[in-house]
């Protein structure tokens, strides 16, 4: 089973990287960008076959390691076609 975890800085927390990218886009003349948030993405292959069980493990992984919940939010997504 394959899953994707996405981690973003919480909205109220400073996101220096997102801001820098936004500014850089302006400098190179790309217009129409209103906001950029910079986060992390993890692709995880699990041996678990059961989506429910997989989700549980992924939750644990996020809480324990992938996200620092003081400043970050996370999202878990099971990828389609990964169920084999």
């Amino acid at each position, binding site marked *: 089973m394959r899953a994707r975890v996405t981690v973003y*800085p919480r909205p109220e*927390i*400073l996101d220096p*990287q997102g801001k820098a990218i936004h500014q850089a886009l302006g400098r190179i003349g790309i217009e129409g960008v209103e906001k950029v948030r910079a986060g992390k993405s993890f692709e995880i292959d699990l041996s678990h076959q059961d989506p429910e069980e997989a989700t549980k493990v992924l939750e644990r992984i996020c809480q324990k*390691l992938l996200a620092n919940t003081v*400043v970050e939010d996370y999202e878990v997504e099971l990828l389609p076609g990964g169920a084999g």
Partner: protein
Amino acid sequence: MKAGVIVFPGSNCDHDVYHVFRHVLGQEVEFLWHQEEDLASCDLVVLPGGFSYGDYLRSGALAALSPVMAAVQRHAERGGLVLGICNGFQILLEAGLLPGALVPNRSLRFECRDVWLRVERTDLPFTSGYKDRDVVRIPVAHMDGNFQASASTLDDLEDSNQVVFRYVDESGAVSSAANPNGSARNIAGLTNAEGNVLGMMPHPERCVEELLGNTDGLALFSGLIRETVGILQQEVAS
């Protein structure tokens, strides 16, 4: 007094801290491997700077899961002293021993330079060697030194006087220009409510000898030793 310096895979400043205690100040000091589970013999445990586990994922995140961190937690709960410098500070935050988080510098670049710090309180063992509101010059060398926390956490920290060091200019004034990394409220170092755990981004261990051109960090260590020895003597006496 006896200090223990934890060695995580990727610690870089372990030898520098060891050098200060052992060779500059003549104290007993030992390295503690990150799998150690018993710190009882140490009065002070230092989490040194460096790039534990490469600082992959987030600075300090992987090291915070080391077996030794449970022991550090117990040591702190017993009232033992814990000092986290740079990566050590990051690990303390990730392990939840101090509140908040350290995110990438405002410049998104590594910053290695001297900064000025104001000592916000001197009633801690860590700062007893300084005078109130002392302004000292200490080097920083980090990529992720930008301290962030929710507004309420920041207010709590201020209200309970947990901010120990703040980035200031040479005259002692807080300003954005004096802030090397964008830390909220110019926070450079903070303590827990009990005052026995200190985390700080700047490196006092790099400025304790005249030969290297700066001794402003020395008072942190010498004060710590004086205090600890004092505490020990009281314990023996009682």
